[in-house]
């Protein structure tokens, strides 16, 4: 069993961006993503998910470093200024690198 290295990008942002971001991720070369509902607090204040307008999602994408870089840059350019959003990247090992 050999594990190979990949990047994982985690994005926390407004629920309303869900469909737009999913499209973006696929266009930029992500082969999959996982989404969970979330709430939280950041520079744009408390987002406590009491109603849809104030709810967050947490998106994870496991992908090649290159793709991770593209996604990061794309989000920085198109969303960071106007939306509640954070993004961070980590290292993971995966079983089947070809899947990602």
């Amino acid at each position: 069993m050999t594990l190979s290295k990949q990047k994982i990008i985690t994005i926390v942002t407004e629920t309303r961006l869900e469909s737009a971001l999913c499209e973006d991720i696929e266009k930029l070369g992500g082969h999959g993503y996982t989404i969970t509902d979330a709430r939280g607090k950041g520079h744009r204040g408390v987002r406590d998910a009491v109603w849809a307008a104030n709810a967050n999602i947490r998106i994870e994408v496991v992908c090649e470093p290159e793709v991770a870089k593209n996604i990061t840059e794309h989000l920085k350019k198109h969303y960071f200024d106007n939306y509640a959003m954070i993004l961070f990247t980590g290292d993971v090992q995966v079983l089947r690198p070809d899947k990602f």
Partner: protein
Amino acid sequence: MNTIDPVILFFIFGAIAGMLRAELRLPRQVYEFVTILLLLTIGLKGGIELAKQPFSTLLPQIAVVVAIGGFILPLIIFPILRYLGRFKRADAASISAHYGSVSVGTFAVVLAYVSSLSVPFEEYMALFVVLLEIPAILVGIILARGVNKETKWGKVAQEVLLGRGITLLIGGLLIGWIAGADGLTSIKPMFFDLFNGILALFLLEMGLITATQLSTLKKHGPFLIVFGVVMPVFLALIGTLMGWSLGLSVGGTAILATLIASASYIAVPAAMRISVPEANPTLSLTASLGITFPFNILVGVPMYYTFAEKAHILFGG
């Protein structure tokens, strides 16, 4: 009806509990459930009435209401915000869109109010909720951007027309229209008998949400507060005139006035967030949800009903 409507008491209870930071929160899924039921029922009621008369007879009314309420009014509101309120272009445009559109929650309250008075009214009013929700959004986007080639109108249209609110209202309208009152008896206990109870739960949650908006009030200065109170009264006066001119009953006039006086806090914020992202969403939500919504349901609805009565006495009809 001298006493306050119990559904309003649920709103006040929610608002107080929220301000005291009580650990009270409808689960989001329950709030969505309650909203879905409200929207469907309002649609069904409208549809049943539509079935009773040829659609064509309504066309003139529709044209006037949509033209004035949806297109002209936001154009009047915009300069007030831009030059009197000194808001940024995007913010002024976004708030105009909110007030040019309508609030389903406020509509449900005025519906319950007029029903409790047992006066007759034009039940097809639900149709106007659908029709008035959309145009102001387009006006708002154009005000923010100009008639810009870059605006993805296809996306905007999809966002707006296929948003949950409009879809459920239209779905309800069509089902009510096809099935008619008799056809719907089997689902009456769920959609009609529970309506006021569901509305009470909805308003309880709205009270809680409104309370969380209050904390942002201080930040945005007194202009927003004054605007949030004066604007709906001004809009209601125009709505009253419109209702009277169109020959609506007193009940119908009050409902139309309330509708025009109401500001969107669901469909428009969603659309603006996508189409005019640089507009600050807390500004428009503070105004529409934190000030105008409570003002309308607590003070406005009975006041606008008096407007309607006065108008009919004054001008006759």
